[in-house]
């Protein structure tokens, strides 16, 4: 008799736990996390020799990031036509 009551109590507790499991309040807003890149590695643009392409007009020292950035900046500033017309 006692065993049956214990079993019934345990069953009721289990039922309550399962039944109320979905009643918790959780954040409904998804927060995306950036994944980790799984693909092939890429080379840096300044690691190429300036002459490796037929049409390269900019000049920089191979492997030197600073000189490549300076070369790109020169071209970048050429987009400002005020430099040419004034």
């Amino acid at each position: 008799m006692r065993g049956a009551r214990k079993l019934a109590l345990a069953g009721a507790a289990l039922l309550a736990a399962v039944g109320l499991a979905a009643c918790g309040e959780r954040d409904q807003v998804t927060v995306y996390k950036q994944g980790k890149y799984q693909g092939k590695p890429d080379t840096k643009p300044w690691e190429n020799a300036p002459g490796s392409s037929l049409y390269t007009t900019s000049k920089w020292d191979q492997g030197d990031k600073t000189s490549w950035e300076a070369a790109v900046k020169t071209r970048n500033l050429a987009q400002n036509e005020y430099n040419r017309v004034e």
Partner: protein
Amino acid sequence: MARMKFLCDAERCIECNGCVTACKNENEVPWGVNRRRVVTINDGVVGAEKSISVACMHCSDAPCMAVCPVDCFYRTDEGVVLHDKDLCIGCGYCFYACPFGAPQFPQAGAFGLRGKMDKCTFCAGGPEKDLSKEEFAKYGSNRLAQGKLPACAEMCSTKALLGGDGDVIADIYRQRVFKRGKGSEVWGWGTAYGKPEQRAAPAGAKS
């Protein structure tokens, strides 16, 4: 160097589609794929018509990178968002996530099969040997490896489209706005490069 960005000046864009043509020609983009396009609003309304050139903006916190199920996106040291086509499964999640509609999918074969995603690379190629045939076939031209800037921006006849280091193009634009005294709105920059507080995770406040 800060990071590479695009800036389109709606006061100057004359909807000539020179940037679209330059991109198509430079990268030999297949039919049906438009890495760059010109969008016009209030078409034909005198004084209210504005055009802007749109492509991948290489966002600071790129949503395409966040949603990609195979993590095929990466960001270079110069802030250019690129992807590995060998990994891409053409699911299209990035297309739905992108606020600029940048990801393009070639339609190939029967039943409108969706191919691997293609988008603007800021003329920086992709994860293949720089300036190789393989890189050109998959991603197009690598002008950054030649010390150049994207063809679309360098070809723009009215210099409406500026591309390059964010600080430099912002300075050029600032000078321009001071000269003409209007049109200081930079389309898309808030969405693409936003303020840090805008990029913070939503608090998920409950009512």
